[in-house]
């Protein structure tokens, strides 16, 4: 951990929040034709790579075509899921009023239904980022990554579970909203799960039918070759997207917060929690696009509804603001962060205790009762 964060006074926390609000307002005012053109080019890239990938797989009897086709289709799915689907579903492009880029109706090319995603990700994960007991993304109910999570013998399987999670990422993500681990603890009945699972299973069936039946069948005798190509493409997408997502919140310096941190949380506090719970990945432009700009995880968590392509320019100012307020800005190269995540997966498979000098172990320093509470209705009403 770098130099510990400076403890901010309530007034400083409010000022910190106000600076970020102002940055957001400045950026939103700039949105226009350029951003529209960018996202349309992303759509175009997704459509063309999908056709190219699937066409190459049809010729997959020649190994180079199979390899190229599998990679191209994998890349297509990655860009669709991350830079297009994930970002559009965050309402980043709603200002365009384009029904095909509408955050509430967009449906993406993965097993998870867009509606469940909007609930578990947009609402729960983004509102309660890294809050224990509220943010299900902390370990997805199957991994133990922070010493603050209670150890149970099942976590001995951490490394295996992590690999399994990465391999089957699209389907497990689809099942995430069911919170199946609650079956084990008896908090949910099987009947409840069965009812909730209906739309999810429907979407999963559709994805499986498309990738593993329809397109392979179109290849006739080459069914197995195309089938294998689709498996490969989905694996590429699953590994890459899960790696990027793990790096966003499970790195060494990422912090988790107790439930109490939500009490009287002001807008400034909320921003601070997003900053401390997220980590950035350094890389080139291709890396940013391929990660759906989640390489700017900090900016994404501060401004989830601002178009991802604007995060790079915003990050310069965010970093500068953090520096002035003495707050750590967690940004490292991809492989460094990935290594730290792997370290956590291995270390916390075994019982571990929060060590006293770890910031995550304390009640977050940022809790302060005096700063104005989050802008919720009561306050808006008074304004």
């Amino acid at each position, binding site marked *: 951990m770098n130099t510990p964060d400076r403890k901010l006074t309530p007034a400083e926390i409010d000022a910190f929040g106000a600076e970020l*609000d102002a940055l957001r*307002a400045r950026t939103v005012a700039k*949105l*226009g*034709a*350029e*951003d*529209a*053109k960018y996202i349309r080019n992303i*759509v*175009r890239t997704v*459509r063309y790579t999908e056709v190219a990938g699937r066409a190459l797989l049809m010729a997959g009897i020649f190994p180079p075509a199979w390899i190229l086709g599998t990679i191209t289709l994998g890349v297509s799915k990655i860009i669709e899921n991350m830079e297009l689907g994930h970002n559009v579903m*965050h*309402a980043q492009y*709603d*200002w*365009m*009023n*384009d*029904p*095909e880029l*509408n*955050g*509430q109706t967009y*449906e993406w090319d993965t097993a998870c239904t867009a509606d469940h995603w*909007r*609930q578990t990700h*947009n*609402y*729960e994960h*983004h*509102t309660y980022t890294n809050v224990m007991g509220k943010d299900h993304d902390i370990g997805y109910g199957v991994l133990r990554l922070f010493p603050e999570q209670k150890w149970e013998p099942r976590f001995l399987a951490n490394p295996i579970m992590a690999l399994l999670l990465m391999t089957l990422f699209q389907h497990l993500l689809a099942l995430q909203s069911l919170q199946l681990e609650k079956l084990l603890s008896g908090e949910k009945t099987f009947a409840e799960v069965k009812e909730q699972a209906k739309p999810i299973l429907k979407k999963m069936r559709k994805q499986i039918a498309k990738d593993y039946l*329809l397109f392979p069948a179109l290849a006739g005798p080459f069914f197995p070759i195309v089938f294998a190509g689709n498996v490969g493409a989905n694996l590429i997408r699953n590994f890459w997207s899960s790696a990027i997502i793990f790096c966003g919140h499970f790195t060494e310096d990422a912090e988790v917060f107790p439930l109490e941190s939500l009490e009287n949380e002001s*807008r400034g506090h*909320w921003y601070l929690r997003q900053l401390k719970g997220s980590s950035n990945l350094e890389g080139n432009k291709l890396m940013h696009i391929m990660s759906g700009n989640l390489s700017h995880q900090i900016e994404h968590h501060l401004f*989830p*509804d601002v178009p991802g392509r604007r995060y790079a320019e915003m990050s310069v100012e965010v970093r500068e603001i953090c520096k002035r307020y003495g707050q750590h800005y967690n940004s490292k190269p991809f492989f460094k962060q990935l290594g730290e995540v792997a370290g956590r997966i291995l270390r916390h498979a075994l019982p571990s205790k929060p060590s006293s000098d770890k910031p995550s172990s304390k009640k977050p320093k940022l809790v302060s009762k005096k700063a104005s509470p*989050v*802008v*919720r*209705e009561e306050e*808006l*009403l008074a*304004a």
Partner: protein
Amino acid sequence: MSSPRPVQFLRRAFGPLVEPAVFNFWAREVGSTASRDRVLARVTAKRAESSRAVTLELQPNRHFVGFKAGQHVNLTVEIDGRRVTRSYSLTGVPNAEGSLSLTVQKIEGGQVSAHLFSNLQVGDVVELDAAFGEMTLPETLSAPLLFLAAGSGITPLMSLTRELAQRGMPVETTLIYWARHRADLCFLSELKALAAKEPKFRFLVALTGDAAIGTDELRGRPSSELLASAVASLSSQSVYACGPAGFVEQVETLVAPIARSFQSEAFTPPTFTPAASSQTVTLMLAKSNRVVTVRSGEPLLAALEAQGIKPPSGCRMGICNTCACGKREGLSRNLKNGGENAEPEANLRICVSSAQSDLTLDL
């Protein structure tokens, strides 16, 4: 217009396998206006109609279901990355090719009219909605017709005039067309030619800026005297009026009490006067067909919940978009930054927005 058989067959056989967004993308990519679900139209011609008006000819795709003379369409164009919608009247009559025409007058400082006037090119594609409007002609006509148009309000009345010409001018018809300057007048030669050819059709121009020349020109705003000089017996006329709100109100007070019937349409967009805070405003919930009153300035989500209506919600602080719903019209205010918006919006986050005027929401 129906497509050729093989196209219909392909559509039925494979259509459901391709997602609408994917189909629409490839159609756009090959330069087609085909769409799975949307009314798209290509601009096939553009010509000047007056010093500050252009006429656009449009060829819509198969989703456009037709119109009656006198109706309007909502037209959507993209300006600086944002899609914006305005209403325009169809100036032609329904025809076999299914083509449409509309005439747009450039408004000073106007977003869409200036874009259509200056930037839109032949070959560009615009989006339309279904035609709407009640100011149409009945099947059988008996009483003489009096059309009163001002400015761009000529457009639907031009469509009605063309329909009457096509029907052989079944009744005595008088059109009075107000404009500030002679150079602002649209369709002038066509209307004059029609008046020369059809004894039952009279065409009068009324100018408020330039001086009148000749016998078919009048001068001044609508008044009892002006109308009396133009038509013998107002009480026998069925009157249709169209133009800016001020004009329509004025002729209504003059004509409606006397005329046999009176129909009108005003073009000026409603100006939403911000309600003083703590005043009550009305929310029309279009999908559930309910009307509720709330206090202006109050976050809409909380206000609706207080009335027992539970729209979906999540963070309640404007980040997750769960509560977003369409706003069809009205003035809303973003409570996070105080910004006000009078445009329709696809996704209004009601947890951090308040109503500053009456609103219509997709709830």
